[in-house]
């Protein structure tokens, strides 16, 4: 119980400070909308092809704009030596990690919640046919971005090139999760349920989340404390 309260405290602190300044959120959101607009020049917006590519397009947008948020996750603590204070506080490293991952998850989810309707309106797609399942898949994929992003944010926080290094490191590693999310999202936006053939992608997402969340929770203490 105490542990959960610590996680909630960290997540609440991060969310509050981000929602007050909206530094990363505004930048990330406008970036996402700009990329969504640019896609209209890549594919003919009225064609069938757009529907077949919708999952891929959306998750590219989320991956790109998500790194803007993930970059802030630990970098936010650098001014005033907040990170040292957090590490010195009686909170276990895994609680710090989980709290920050939850905050990142919520922020990326906000971006997604805005991008899905904007995408549907701009490209005339009826994307809500499988809404509950789509939300579940998005949540799983967003969590995979949030865990890996937070973990690698902790690895790169003291680097000068951190804004460049984080995407360099996490995009290749995220590929299985992004692949699964793209496949499933395309399917669900087209209004089809997840059939037996695509169920494997759901399992990929779940396994990815479980493995990397537990790996990160075990290793984050050594990263932060040393």
């Amino acid at each position, binding site marked *: 119980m105490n542990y959960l309260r610590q996680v909630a405290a960290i997540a609440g602190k991060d969310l509050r400070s981000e929602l007050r300044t909206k530094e990363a959120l505004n930048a990330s959101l406008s970036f996402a909308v700009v990329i969504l607009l640019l896609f209209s020049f890549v594919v003919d917006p009225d064609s069938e092809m757009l529907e077949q590519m919708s999952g891929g397009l959306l998750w590219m947008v989320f991956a790109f704009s998500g790194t803007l948020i993930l970059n802030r996750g630990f970098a936010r603590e650098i001014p005033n030596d907040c990170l040292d204070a957090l590490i010195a506080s009686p909170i276990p490293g895994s609680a710090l990690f989980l709290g920050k991952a939850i905050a990142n998850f919520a922020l990326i989810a906000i971006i997604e919640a805005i991008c899905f309707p904007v995408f549907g309106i701009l490209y005339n797609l009826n994307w809500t046919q499988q809404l509950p399942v789509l939300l579940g898949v998005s949540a799983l994929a967003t969590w995979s971005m949030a865990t890996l992003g937070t*973990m690698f944010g902790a690895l790169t926080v003291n680097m000068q090139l951190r804004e460049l290094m984080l995407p360099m490191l996490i995009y290749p590693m995220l590929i299985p999760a992004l692949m699964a999310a793209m*496949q499933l999202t395309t399917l669900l936006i087209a209004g089809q349920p997840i059939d037996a053939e695509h169920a494997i992608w759901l399992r990929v997402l779940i396994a990815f989340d479980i493995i*990397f969340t537990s790996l990160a929770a075990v290793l984050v203490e050594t990263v932060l404390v040393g």
Partner: protein
Amino acid sequence: MRDKLIYGAGIFAALYFVRNLYVILLQLPDEALQGAVYRIFFFHLPPYFAAVACFFGAAIASGLYLKTKQWKYDVFAVSATEVGLALAAMNLVTGMIWGRQQWGIWWTWDARLTSALITWLIYLGYLMLREGIKDPSERAKNSAVLSIFALFAVYFTYKANVWYRTQHPGPVLTIRTGDAGTIDPAMQAMIYHNLGAFLLLTVALVAVRMNLEDSQRAVESLRRRAHAIA
């Protein structure tokens, strides 16, 4: 001790390669379907196995580093990863040349090709991470964690790609299945011989790279002393 290993493994690897090349080029017959070009395979699969061995070794050494905080494990991890990248590059390039001749294309998004390329990029990220961190103990610690993550990611990526790409079977699979089980015993033995040669070479290269890393550490500590005096 390490110098002896370098010379021993290096000389043995060189002799082994000379013997292997003699057999590959002059004794083995051409493959029935591909002609002479199949000989590339002896420099395609063995380096890949050696690279995988390097990455595995690096992840294990990284785990040991995190446990014991002994420098030698970090030195081994970075050396093995770098040599593994060179070997994996050999695997990718020979594969592309073979693909150009056999399929008429340099690259195809087959599961193996894709995951091999992603693996290469992930470990390149490992070296870049090391470049970017100045403090030695932080560098060792963070890259050790990355190395462990990388091994899981590589396995996952390969699995996911197999499920993804086999939905659209390419020219690879028909050729692969056509060859399976029909491989000539002499050719198969040659693959193992060359694998042995590559593993010896890997030992030598990793040892050389470890020497280099040790010298690099010496430079860093000398520099610190020079700064203290100046």
